[in-house]
């Protein structure tokens, strides 16, 4: 799944980033493999969303969120 599909309150772990123009911007602000994040708020139409990552809160649009591949924290498949 991608971060764009996440529901509010979910704990997620980043598994990879899609290789597109948002990649570097996402990495710089702290999105990279194995980082844990949780979904804090979702605006109407699922866009933008606000997540908490480490000590900070970050908002990003659906488009950008769709290039962050995540898995649920408590799923061990």
């Amino acid at each position, binding site marked *: 799944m991608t971060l764009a599909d996440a529901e509010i309150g979910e704990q997620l772990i980043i598994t990879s980033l899609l290789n597109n123009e948002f990649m570097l*911007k996402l*990495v710089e602000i702290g999105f990279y493999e194995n980082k844990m994040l949780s979904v804090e708020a979702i605006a109407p139409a699922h866009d933008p969303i606000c997540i908490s990552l480490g000590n*900070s809160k970050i908002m990003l649009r659906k488009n950008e969120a769709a290039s962050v591949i995540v898995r649920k924290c408590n799923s061990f498949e």
Partner: protein
Amino acid sequence: METKKLKKILLIGNPNSGKSSLFNQLTGIFQKIANYPGVTTEKKSGILKLDEQEYELIDLPGCYSLYPNSIDEKVVIDELINHSCDLVIYAADASNLHRSLLLYTQIADCLLPNIVVLNMVDELLKKGEQIDIEFLSKELNTPVFVCNSKSGKGVEDIKSFIQKEKYLATEHFFGNQDLFEHKMNSDALNYREWHQYVYSTPNNAIIENTKRKEIIYRYNKIERILQLTTSRTALAFKRIRLTDRLDKIALHPIAGYIILLGILFIVFQTLFTLAAFPMEWLDSLFGHIADYLKNLKHQSWLKEFLAEAVIPGIGGILIFVPQIALLFLLNTLLEESGYMARIVFLLDKFMRKFGLSGKSILPLLSGNACAIPAIASTKAIPTHKERLITILCIPFMTCSARLPVYALLISITIPLKYQGISLLGLYMLGVIFALLFAWILDKNIETNERSFLIMELPPYRLPSFRNIVTNIRNAVVPFVKTAGKYILTISILLWFFASYSYQGNGVVKSDIEHSFIAKFGHTIEPVIRPLGYDWKIGVALISSFAAREVFVSTLATLYQIDSENTGTIFEKIKSQTYPDTNDVVFTTAVGISLLLFYAFALQCMSTLAAMKKETGQWKYPFYSFVVMLVLAYVSAFLAFQALK
């Protein structure tokens, strides 16, 4: 005596890292701000004076890494690459060291002498965060200072370091070997050279990927250091929880919007009601001073000059000051408390429908104070198209220079019970046309750039009193200076041209109906007659193409000269009649026509200059000017013809 070159110190850090407060603390009263307040949109420079030694301190916009995503960030990198500096003071947000240190490690690797300043550590310690400063300093291989930029605690230590110590460039954080492991395919020997190579080379997939690896590598290294040097007690999570709890409501898909509307309502209500009182006092004060001078027995041209040109001119400037101060107070409160970022979150989707971005909101709101700093603050908008559209829309917002014009016209031409609603209506008109214009532009500007918005929402905090005062002062002082220059010059010129005429053998004193200005006014009358204006309004209209606020002072000057009765300027203007028919000049139809003209016309030279500066081309200000002038003329014409 040997004259030494000023030592240059750069202040760098992430956005929201307390950099600007630190700048204010360090420069204190010796601050000389080159740009407008609000967010640091351009480099800001100040003088730091320690004993007899002076240092130039430059505050750069906040940024996250040495690979720029916006023009704002480019300013930082250009400064680092193109100019030398003696010391970098790196301001790190102690509550988010992980991210803060990313840019730091890049700067250290560029071999720039540096120190790290952890801001607000004392508050963090109280809240349960623990940082081993000494150990951190050892791990980073650079002096680490702690300070509180609100209270000023710790600032003295930094000053004494600047004054007494040698500045050293630290060792590579990202050692040479690490660098070449990642096969950066250039001839770069060190990080600085690699960065210069990357910065001057068009992006490609290999470079992108190497940058990504570099950043992750740095983050991993930072994580290791922070594991050794910081820890957190249970107490620490409380503060984070408070922001979380507030955000549960503030960012809620329904409650969030209700709160937003409430806050915007309070902001505008405060603006309209609170500023009205000091504005009235100032108006009557200057009216009385002018009357007092006029009634003096002593007769001289100096007395007339003071009473008819200088005093009304100065009054016309100072009357704005309360409103501007209040606008900047409210803007600063929204920005500093962290709520502005929540507004961006709530309105981003809505703004995108018009080709704007959530980040266009701050510039558009600042446009309610003054278009010039608003246009400069668009630098934070990352994509070119959204930024351009924002810049072109800003002049539609009701800037504070329009306010005195509105205040005057509304109070003398609109019936009392509709006065409040018409001011609100004019604000709404500005917003609606800004959005409409944006929508049209969006449909007509081609771009292949993908729009994006990734932004941090800072924790809520109480705004610092010092920052509020600095921001207000930095807004009011340049305003009075620049507006003063225009208004005073034009008032004085007007007074001369309105009091003298050319007759046969030279320039002689004459009444206003035969003066130079009347001749000019009557020449332009055919153009403005269909809008319902007499020649005096025409003169005021033309003179206010330099700056809108000149309208009031021009009318004040023209009617001050014309009228024998005493009273405030407002009363004098209201009682004007046409000499031939005795009809009132300022009827409701004329008032509405003028209000519409001022709502749309781009009568501000400084705004045009700012647009040229930010877009790099004259065609944009020219285009805006023409479009808005046509809109102003047509709407004023239609309104007058329909209402008369």
